[in-house]
């Protein structure tokens, strides 16, 4: 019988505990530490996509222009890295600036939400004959651990356009994201309720009975697949088997945030984004390669009016969730294996409109890379003093995605086969080596 690496680790821990009495508690702690180290020594890499739905304002976050009239009302603050300055509303991230590489020279051609979202997540414009997969799908395919009982790609509270822009495209449904949504209003303790429902068979079906059901189900599936091995049938079977695997394992506990103390939950922030970042940490601890967390219920960053009020509120959530995630991953030795990308579909206009808002601006905006494989503590690229154009280090979505791949140790040129046998690279751009370790 095949044994999963997780199972092996558990056995080792159990062994250590049983001899713990004889060898003394300090040795026991040492051996647990050793086991933990072994657990993290595997090559599993992780990626967290922090998606800012609506298009976040670069001028009020990571590319401040306090001396120019376009700069707006926010002040900038110093960070842990001399010379690198963020918005006053990102104080916790400022302390971890040595982990962040700010990419200030991003530019794309899409200023529409839906198409911009597709461009940023797939690298390609929508509408061509090739159904390009979202980067999360391609990366989770490259990074996945085939023995894991958990999904390879989990997305928390995805925003609008998720189906078109988060689609696995020609990779097929096997690589689709598993979506966790908010189930109902916040609980009495005010934490956003993120849940995966229906994680238990119906009450009257005990595990023995469930097993008997599955045995007969298996033979029905096998005989249908024999004559109908079409992609949708194969996909149904694959997804069912993943779900059944998950039901039968402890891995599903990853989704149970009530197992965390209120102090920890509070640190991440009570909203969907904060709790989503906490779930990301739990999933990464259990080996999930790719987690995406969206900030901005609907198109929250689409701040055409009252930009500053809204951005401040969003930044508070962003700062708490993201910074706590990095701290906790770092405590567990997982940050160096986890690459984080912060991005939205585009940036906002430097000029402030008559409603105190900023409009869509794909010509010059910022994205941020952090964590594993990333040479943090720097800003790469620059915009003009008024923020209207990129004057240094200009890059597009393909360069961004290629850089992300390389940070994760995935060759961006590695190819997947599209419909019609056409090989397609994960990302076609040039990785920015200056921000890579």
């Amino acid at each position: 019988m095949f044994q999963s690496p997780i199972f092996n680790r558990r056995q080792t821990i159990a062994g250590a505990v049983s001899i713990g009495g004889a060898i003394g508690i300090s040795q026991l702690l040492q051996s647990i530490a050793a086991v933990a180290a072994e657990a993290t020594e595997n090559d599993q890499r992780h990626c967290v996509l922090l998606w800012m739905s609506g298009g976040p304002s670069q001028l009020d976050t990571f590319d401040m222009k306090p001396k120019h009239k376009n700069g707006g009302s926010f002040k900038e603050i110093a960070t842990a890295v001399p010379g690198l300055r963020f918005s006053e509303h990102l104080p916790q991230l400022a302390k971890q600036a040595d982990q962040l590489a700010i990419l200030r020279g991003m530019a794309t051609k899409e200023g529409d939400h839906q198409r911009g979202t597709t461009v940023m997540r797939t690298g390609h414009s929508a509408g061509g004959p090739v159904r390009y997969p979202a980067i999360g799908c391609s990366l989770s395919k490259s990074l996945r651990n085939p023995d894991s009982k958990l999904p390879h790609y989990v997305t928390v509270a995805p925003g609008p356009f998720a189906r078109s822009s988060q689609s696995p495209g020609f990779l097929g449904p096997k690589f689709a994201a598993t979506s966790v949504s908010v189930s109902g209003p916040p609980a009495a303790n005010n934490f956003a309720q993120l849940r995966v429902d229906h994680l238990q068979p119906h009450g009257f079906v005990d595990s023995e009975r469930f097993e008997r059901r599955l045995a007969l189900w298996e033979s029905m599936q096998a005989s249908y697949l024999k004559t109908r091995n079409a992609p949708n049938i194969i996909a149904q079977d694959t997804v069912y088997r993943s779900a059944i695997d998950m039901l039968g394992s402890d891995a599903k506990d990853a989704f149970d945030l009530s197992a965390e103390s209120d102090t920890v939950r509070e640190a991440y922030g009570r909203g969907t984004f904060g709790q989503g970042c906490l779930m990301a940490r739990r999933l990464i601890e259990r080996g999930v390669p790719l987690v995406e967390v969206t900030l901005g219920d609907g198109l929250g960053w689409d701040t055409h009016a009252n930009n500053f009020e809204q951005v401040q509120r969003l930044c508070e959530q962003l700062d708490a969730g993201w910074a706590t995630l990095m701290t906790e991953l770092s405590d567990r030795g997982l940050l160096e294996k986890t690459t984080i990308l912060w991005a939205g579909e585009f940036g906002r206009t430097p000029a402030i409109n008559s409603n105190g808002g900023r409009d869509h601006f794909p010509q010059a905006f910022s994205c941020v890379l952090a964590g594993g494989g990333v040479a943090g503590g720097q800003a790469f690229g620059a915009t003009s003093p008024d923020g209207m154009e990129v004057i240094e280090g200009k890059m597009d979505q393909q360069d961004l995605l290629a850089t992300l791949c390389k940070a994760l140790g995935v060759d961006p040129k590695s190819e997947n086969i599209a419909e019609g046998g056409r090989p397609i690279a994960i990302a076609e751009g040039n990785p920015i080596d200056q921000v890579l370790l």
Partner: protein
Amino acid sequence: MMRIVCIHFVLTLIVSIGSVGRCGETTGDRFASPSDRVDQYLSESWQETATRPSPRSGDAEFCRRAWLDLAGVAPPVWQLRRFLADPSGDKREHLIESLLNSSRFATHMAHRWNEFLLPAETADDRQVDATALHAWLRKQFLNNTPYDHLVGGFLTAGGKSDQGPAIFYTSRNLEPVKLAAATSRLFMGVQLECAQCHDHPFARWTQDDFWSFAAFFAQLQLSETNLRGGGQAIEDRSGAEVMFPDSDRVMAPRYPGATSPPESDPTDFRRRQLTIWLASRNNPYFARAAANRVWAHLFGRGLVEPVDAMDSSNPPSHPELLQYLADYLVEQRFDLRELYRMLTRTQAYHRTSAISEGERPRADSFAAMNVKTLSASQYFDSLSQNVLLGRFNAAADSPQAEQAVRGEFLRRMKAPEAEPSDYPHGVVQVLGMMNGPEMLVATAEKQSGLIASMEAPFFSDSDRIETLFLACLSRPPSDTELEMFLAHLNDASAEQSSAARLSDLTWILLNTAECFVCP
């Protein structure tokens, strides 16, 4: 009428060569036995690749297919039994005929078009308007309104009497750009909006084409009349214009690809101006897009796939066949039901989707039927009709209880842009399938309508198993399956009531891949 196929298109039509080549034939010859003609086009394409078509499907497979395609629901068990027992040779034609003429067909078509017409992210609070659209569409399909009239009515709708289509416009905030994009996708099968910011990368559209097309929607406004029931109506008022981006250039309305402006409208009602060309045989894209959608509905993928990317870079799998279907639709004066009738009489539509030997033919060869994933509503409505049997909420037995669970199921399983050739669901949705509330009611011994109905003492175990198969999979069990299921019913090693055993069997069938597809 005789020269329809020779109409001189103002636009360059990529695929018109095939039809022009046959202009010498009389219309009568060309459309004499259209179903055979379709099969001929297909079999010619198989010769080149030495593809072997699959044999004719069995009656049960065909019955499930026809019901799910045309009525949107699996056959009711008694209808299926009657169909299987019917010895007459033309029973399939009769079945198609009765389904096409039933109100279920109109309802199902309205449902499909509702999904096409509304943006995927339509907010839940727009239900009043979505229902109005459904009712409007259903009426058109009940009356078998010709497709050009239907689209024309849709595109010129305004005021209180035409409340239904309003949501198409309001859900896109009356924005000319979004409406131009949606209209070109839906009714022309092309993605004109790719030319919004730059000339189209794959097709011949220019940025000017897009913006002058958008100008047809420049004058939309919300009507000030408040409608009862909270719905909204729209109207056109002159004044507003569309500007070319980053310029002061006012865009005059113009048909895509045309060099001169359209004939002026007496009241400058621009959407009527648009309709005169768009929903007509003079628009070469219109009939092709419609025919391709009908084909995709019945055969699981379009002759051009995706159906809204009919660009020069994405050629049809069978160009001549597609042109023939478009010409046929024009010849039939845009009678959609007639196109459905003709296509469901082809041999291709009657082929089995099972391949017992050798490799499965390519999906775009149509040499075997493609298995189509059911939509969430097809699955739920079949479950409701054949398994739940109205027993939804034993405590508070009311139609509302079932509607609420149906709504919740559809929300959970929503996959608006999914193709029938995809299985669009992930682990979370599958957990809901296996352990969710509708499955609970379908399989809990005390609640399941189907299980309760089989308690009658005059049923043998074999009868019960057969009924389960007919209800869940629309076919009787094979000998092997019957044997396996009987063994489960009589397994002495497990301490279970017979109802609990039936519950297991129901759960198993409802979670098989077979139960999720139209075969």
